[in-house]
């Protein structure tokens, strides 16, 4: 944790309340570079416990990049450099002592395009518990799989064909399978990177409903292109523009009374 002075510095940039009373994830003065390119510029934000927060903003504003900082997915990109501090439960995740593998088990991720493994539905969900040794025996593993699929709202549709390939499901089912796969390792936070952008409206509605329910148990960060979606699923909204966090606030307030003129321009469709 840096000094109070640094927090104030970023307050000058961001409008609204970036802090949260019971914060799970804390990002402080985060900068991200792709080579020479600055993709994220001095972003400070808290993500509360069991809170659904959405990141909105025009394409290329860095919202996905910032999301991928929380589970260090950017580590796989060679040219990517991250400055600042991100902590989960006051533990800096960029600390040299932190092992990135269990960290990613604590912070699950759902991707833009449904990406089930070319394995059976059962094996897809069981993958995480297996590699982390979360189950004591076959029965326990069966329970975890069933429970995860139930929570992802997929159990009824697939319970009779758990051994058929996950890639054979429809797009919306695949995405719910990916969510089931993520919650099977019982993460504390789920990051969702535009989870509905490849889906049709009906499948989208199902996923949104699911996010709503999961919000009671997990902290969820969702990046979305659709302002309506942000309005529907999240309690808090953060607006990014050109790598800067412009405004954070209650979703209702952001969409009805934006304080910053750039936010207003985006909400009313003038930019983006």
């Amino acid at each position, binding site marked *: 944790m840096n000094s109070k002075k640094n927090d104030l510095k970023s307050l000058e940039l961001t409008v609204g309340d970036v802090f949260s009373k019971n914060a799970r994830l804390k990002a402080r003065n985060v900068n991200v570079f792709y080579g020479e390119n600055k993709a994220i510029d001095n972003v400070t934000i808290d993500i509360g416990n069991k809170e659904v927060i959405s990141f909105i903003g025009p394409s290329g504003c860095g919202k996905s990049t910032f999301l991928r900082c929380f*589970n260090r*997915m950017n580590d*796989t990109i*060679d040219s990517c450099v991250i400055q600042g501090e991100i902590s989960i439960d006051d533990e800096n995740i960029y600390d040299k002592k932190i092992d990135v*593998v*269990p*960290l*990613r*088990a604590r912070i*699950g*991720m759902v*991707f833009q*395009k449904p*990406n*089930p*493994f*070319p*394995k059976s539905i059962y094996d897809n969900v069981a*993958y*995480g518990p297996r*590699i*982390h040794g979360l189950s004591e025996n076959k029965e326990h593993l069966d329970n975890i799989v069933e429970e995860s699929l139930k929570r992802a709202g997929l159990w009824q549709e697939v319970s009779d064909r758990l051994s058929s*390939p996950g*890639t054979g499901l429809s797009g919306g089912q695949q995405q719910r399978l*990916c969510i089931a*796969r*993520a919650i099977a*390792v019982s993460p504390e936070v789920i990051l969702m990177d535009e989870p509905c952008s490849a889906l049709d409206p009906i499948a989208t509605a199902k996923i949104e409903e699911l996010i709503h329910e999961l919000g009671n148990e997990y902290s969820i960060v969702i990046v979305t292109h659709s302002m309506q979606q942000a309005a529907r699923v999240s309690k808090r909204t953060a607006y990014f523009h050109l790598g800067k966090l412009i405004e954070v606030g209650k979703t209702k307030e952001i969409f009805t009374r934006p304080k910053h003129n750039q936010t207003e321009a985006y909400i009313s469709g003038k930019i983006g």
Partner: protein
Amino acid sequence: MFSFFLLTGILIISLFFFLLGYNRAKNLINLNQKNLHSLTHYYGIFCSLSALLPTLGVFFIFTICDDLVFAELVKEYIPNEVINSKDYNFTIVLAQINNSVEGLIFGTPPQWITNAAEIWKSWVIKSNILTMIVCAITILTSGFLSYKKIHSEFRSRNAVEKIVMTILAVSSVIAILTTIAIIFSVVFESIRFFALIPYDEFLFGTVWNPQFEGAERAGSGQEGLSQYGAIPLFAGTFLISIIALCVSVPIGLFSAIYLSEYASSKERAFFKPLLEVLAGIPTVVYGFFAALTVAPFLRSSGSMLGLDIASESALAAGLVMGIMIIPFISSLSDDVINAVPQSLRDAGYGLGSTKNETVMKIVLPAALPGVVASIILAVSRAVGETMIVVMAAGLAANLTANPLEAVTTVTSQIVTILVGDQEFESAKTLSAFALALTLIIITLGMNFYALHVVKKYREQYE
């Protein structure tokens, strides 16, 4: 020489037709003051191609057919007493006449051969003139007809499209026909072989001991008797291929994984071409590497351990062949591993897998069909490999599973049978074709199977 000049002439005339068509199109534009359907050069190309292609066809038919026709005609000039004599062979007589035509005269040939050669020469001149005239007529009429076709409504761009498509189709047909022709030539010789040796003896016999008929006749007792059991050869091929795979599959696959998953882009750019250089080394070079370096090394290190390793051993040949096929496996596997979508790796990392877990549990299973296909292709490469085994594995047709002994393979037997003087009637020579046929069937089968495997699992992650 004549053919060369005629071809040059045909090409020059078709170029000339290009200019004609091009100019006609230009003039049409000037006359009508509006654009034609296609760009002007398409009219030129259309004109020149439709003059050139039929003429080339005619030219090749004439050049191929004239010798056949002459061979039929020359029969009349062979005296009856020669035809009726006991050891008359038309092929040999024809060769004598041809030699005489080309001025290769050994001793003093009979008068009738010289006469026939003289007549043959006069036919050649006549046929050359005929070819020239027919080609000239063809090129001028077809060129003129296509020239006439050009008017403001004519769609030469589409016509050129059709001509190009025809050329492409003909090329692929030629490639396929050649393959079929090769197979048939092998099949026909094999049929002659199986007329002499029953196929069950060939396929299931366990002793390979081919002898020339002369040796058989002169041979005393059992020693001189030929035996054509192909099992030792196929067993040797199998043994060496297995050794080669034991070397190449782990090394090739692991280096492919390293290159595609772990190496930085700089390392990859450096190592991948280096690895592929291995595929560019001629197999003869591998052969003497095996015979002069690896085999003596194995022999001396074997004697230190108290093992008796033959100076020509399956092990030496297999090891070196394994090195030879590493690039086939690594390069193809690298391609299929790279083709696994990044999103699957992201999903693995996102669930908290280590790099190794992601590779072993997600990437490799997804790439497995491609990897298997690359291994099968490598096997068919190993089975067909000749030089290394000829030089390093020996020629003794031992039926053994011991890699330390000398064995022989199908391909190296084919080479030894067909190198040097042969009687084409003997079962020994013909056996090479039967071996080749069996080998072709095996490798074709494996290639088909590899393609099938790839196709079957291709959609899995798409």
